[in-house]
């Protein structure tokens, strides 16, 4: 993992001292709220419905056990004993008091963490494949590049006041687990003629105008990355609209000006600034890469794992859903579900955080990851240790065998916390998970991604859910719209709106009708919901959702 240099530590320390003074000046009245708000947002502090919220970056979703322990301590010392892991690989604390936030930031700095640029119109926390450095299907570990981008973008003087927020995601695998096509810039590490480089995707995004990103450069040599990124953001900074917040994201800039025009401007800018990059960035990247050297994997024949699979059905079920293929055949990637049926998606108590940290330390080469799907990952576990890991997780309420299934739901905080929300998300996720647990159907249903947003800003990624749910306020009542067929992978697509929305009471039965229809419609058990949808289209699912309309038409 990346270790802070003296420069990094001094920078964070200075920023925290500045923010401490800013908080004091706000409290003693020297700063108005209008003056203070941009300052607190630059440091990840929001004011939400019931309290302040501190959003802490977990760069590219990677952390070690010591950092996870501190996240748990912060939850106990200054919050209500839990934290919420988000779709942007951050953690949010929902209940801090203003006076305590500088102490929370200092505690984070002790373990090389911060909340800088987790808000505001800046380049946000750079996200990456949560299986980075471990996945069997990976070309290269995307995290060194993500770290380089973090260093380049943090406090970048030209990019502190962009037209709007700016999100970058990187994947090193052809199987895109980082939703790169729904980011302002998505980077896919590729190889061409033996050379390492990137496919650069631009102008993707969800929100009120969902768009799949477009390929701006089909092959960018690796060493040209930073100047090319700087050229893109620089063009956007000047060209992006500042007159209308809803048209300010780069997806609109690219859409309104056209990809060719945008590309020409980027190339022109690139030609101008390329000579300024003398290669120092590549030297830094080489140093960062050394920090991400693979752990020394244990050589030991796999034995206990097979025994446990044979004798313990619960373990086998968990292993079938929650493990992914590791680059080392004797190892596995463990996804710990933060989606126990009926629980709040993405929440972990301080006790659970400590347990996961201890398991990572003991069995997982001291590494943890946070996924955009709001789960926690132990990326490197020897298969012989899996039974021990599972039983410890299970005892802590973390043994749910549902990763990738219908109850592994992404849900934004919604109107239970968020000031922007138009409806609640969490209770809908809780009820869907509880219902399908009662039906004992989810393993039969198989891979199915439900994603729920509590407003049009789409933090819950509903546009790329196989079943997407969008909560709205319709004449003072919560109302839920369904979209179908969305996909956040390399075959990304935006879901199609199914029809009129449903009330909070109607939405769970509506989802159930959809799933039952799928079970009837699929050509064979191996055909997933998304495949069936792509084969048959919206009509049969619409008929299941709106049986009355069907009856009236008949």
């Amino acid at each position, binding site marked *: 993992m990346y270790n802070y240099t003296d420069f990094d530590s001094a920078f964070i320390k200075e920023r925290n001292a500045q923010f401490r003074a800013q908080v004091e000046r706000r409290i003693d009245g020297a700063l108005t709220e209008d003056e203070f708000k941009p300052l607190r947002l630059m440091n990840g502090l929001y*004011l939400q*419905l*019931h*309290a302040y919220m501190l959003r802490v970056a977990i760069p590219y979703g990677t952390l070690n056990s010591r950092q996870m322990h501190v996240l748990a301590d912060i939850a106990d010392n200054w919050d*209500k004993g839990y934290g919420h892991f988000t779709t942007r690989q951050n953690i949010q604390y929902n209940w801090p008091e203003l006076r305590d936030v500088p102490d929370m930031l200092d505690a984070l700095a002790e373990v090389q963490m911060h909340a800088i640029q987790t808000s505001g119109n800046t380049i946000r926390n750079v996200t990456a494949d949560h299986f980075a450095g471990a996945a069997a299907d990976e070309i290269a570990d995307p995290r060194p590049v993500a770290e380089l981008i973090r260093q380049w973008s943090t406090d970048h003087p030209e990019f502190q006041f962009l037209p709007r927020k700016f999100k970058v995601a990187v994947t090193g695998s052809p199987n895109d687990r980082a939703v790169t096509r729904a980011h302002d810039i998505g980077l896919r590490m590729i190889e061409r003629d033996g050379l390492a480089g990137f496919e650069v995707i631009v102008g993707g995004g969800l929100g009120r105008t969902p768009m799949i990103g477009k390929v701006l450069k089909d092959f960018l040599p690796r060493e040209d990355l930073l100047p090319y990124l700087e050229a893109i953001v620089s063009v956007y900074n000047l060209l992006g609209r500042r007159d209308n917040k809803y048209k300010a994201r780069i997806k609109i800039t690219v859409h309104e000006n056209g990809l060719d025009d945008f590309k020409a401007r980027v190339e022109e800018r690139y030609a101008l600034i390329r000579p300024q990059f003398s290669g120092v960035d590549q030297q830094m990247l080489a140093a960062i890469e050394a920090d991400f050297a693979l752990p020394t994997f244990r050589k030991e024949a796999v034995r206990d794992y097979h025994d446990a699979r044979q004798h313990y059905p619960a373990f086998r079920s968990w292993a079938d859903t929650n493990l992914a293929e590791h680059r080392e055949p004797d190892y596995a990637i463990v996804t710990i579900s933060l989606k126990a049926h009926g629980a*709040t998606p993405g929440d972990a108590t301080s006790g659970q955080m400590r347990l996961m940290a201890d398991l990572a330390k003991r069995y997982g080469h001291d590494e943890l990851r946070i996924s955009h799907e709001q789960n926690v990952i132990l990326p490197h576990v020897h298969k012989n240790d899996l039974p021990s890991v599972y039983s410890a997780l299970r005892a802590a309420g973390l043994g749910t065998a549902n990763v990738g299934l219908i109850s592994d739901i992404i849900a934004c905080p919604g109107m239970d*916390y968020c000031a922007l929300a138009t409806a609640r998300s969490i209770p809908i996720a809780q009820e869907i998970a509880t219902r399908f647990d009662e039906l004992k159907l989810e393993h039969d249903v198989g891979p199915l991604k439900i994603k729920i947003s509590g407003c049009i800003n789409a933090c819950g990624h509903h546009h790329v859910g196989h079943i997407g749910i969008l909560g709205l306020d319709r004449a003072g009542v919560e109302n839920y719209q369904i979209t179908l067929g969305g996909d956040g992978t390399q075959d990304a697509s935006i879901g199609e709106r199914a029809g009129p929305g449903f009330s909070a009471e109607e939405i769970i039965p509506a989802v159930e009708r959809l799933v039952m229809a799928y079970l009837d419609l699929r050509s064979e058990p191996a055909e997933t919901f998304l495949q069936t949808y792509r084969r048959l289209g919206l009509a049969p699912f619409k008929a299941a959702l709106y049986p009355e309309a069907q009856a009236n038409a008949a």
Partner: protein
Amino acid sequence: MAREFKPKVVTANALLEGDVIYQTASGWTRDLSQAEVLTDEADADLRLIDASQQTDLVVGAYLADVDASGATPKPTHFREDFRARGPSNYAHGKQEALSNV
């Protein structure tokens, strides 16, 4: 004909704690039932200006509709109902304070 003025309360978040507060005749309360109900539009505007000037105490003051037909004001919109109570996934926020009484 002039539009009917619906009863209102002035609400905001507390600067230090961040939680939901309501204006009373003489200060602020954390309990909606204690809030001052405003039935006159001009009066409500003045009370909001007064609240907005208290920048050392409150953030983001605004007027929220209430149902004033009972003994105490009640929220009319679900958002205000959640603000007055707390989140639905945990007994945190105001519902926690109430259960500790």
